[in-house]
């Protein structure tokens, strides 16, 4: 894969960046609306919030950090630490509950 992923938008480059920016702001607004207006029962609220949060992370990582179209090694480096953290969380919760 090319190391020049950032050049793929040359010429008409601002369009995807602006669209991603608008999407990020819109999702943040929806998140705040969900929290402040309480459209969803409190106990179920974390589900949509976590999904929306992951969507924002994916947009930033793929388009602003150029993981989309760049060397796959960088994507692996971005994702590999996560299972270890889940392991720490699981161990901690088990230890606290026992």
């Amino acid at each position, binding site marked *: 894969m090319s190391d020049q992923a950032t050049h793929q938008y040359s010429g008409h480059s601002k369009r995807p960046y602006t669209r991603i920016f608008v999407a990020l702001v819109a999702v943040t607004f929806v*998140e705040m609306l969900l929290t402040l207006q309480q459209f969803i029962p409190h106990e179920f609220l974390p589900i949509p919030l976590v999904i929306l949060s992951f969507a924002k992370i994916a947009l*930033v990582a793929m388009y602003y950090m150029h993981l989309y179209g760049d060397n796959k090694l960088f994507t692996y480096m971005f994702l590999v*630490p996560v299972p270890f953290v889940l392991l720490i969380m699981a161990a901690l919760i088990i230890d606290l*509950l026992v």
Partner: protein
Amino acid sequence: MALTLESGALFALLAGGTLLLTGLVAGGIAFLVFNLDRERRYVDESVLTPAAAADGGSVALPRLSAVSESVIHSGVVEAPPSLGMSHNKLGMWTFLSSEIMFFTALIGAYVAFRAIGDLVPEHLNVVLSGVGTFVLICSSFTVVLALDAVQENNQQNFVFYLLGSILLGAAFIGIQGYEWAELMSHGVTATSSLFGTAFFVMTGFHGLHVIIGLVWLTLTLLRAFRGDFTPKDNMGVETFGLYWHFVDVVWIVLFTIIYLIQ
């Protein structure tokens, strides 16, 4: 045996341990990558032997001509990236990988304490933090536009977007500082409760990253004034961008788990 959490010492222990662990992991990866790279030097000793020189440089010249223009600076020929990617970028991603482990371990500990009910958020200002989130997203946007501008050789816009990013980053720190003061006025400090410890450790480390980013951004701006970046040579801006967007990603998670899910 359940651990006692009265002073939040466990949280600090986790943070310190994670920092040490991530440092060791990052150091190990860097050692392996750069030793591997040294063995694959493109311009090797054999090219520059007397035998090659006696051959009229017929061996050396084709090899050297294959070296990209972009890696020749100040008369020094550097080996091109043998792994097929920029060393700067690989180094930054290695660093970010260790940072992901560091921050997600902190976040993981916070979520675990919340899940068992030991940690209860107090006096949080969702609207103010929402404004801070918007400001940080704007700064990510201006950083990516700055990279875009330098790649199109628009130096004026490049400097303008860098300046905008500095102002937005500083505004975020200002908002964060205001919120810290507001919480402290309500009696929430780093030692008042487990929530206080967790909140100040997580937002403090994030804020420290933003401040480091601002210093780096300022240096990038100074280099931009000197005309150091061109459409062909802008890896410094891209590397900084990776760092800044990562800081944005961390805040997206902190905003959700601390402020939105209460």
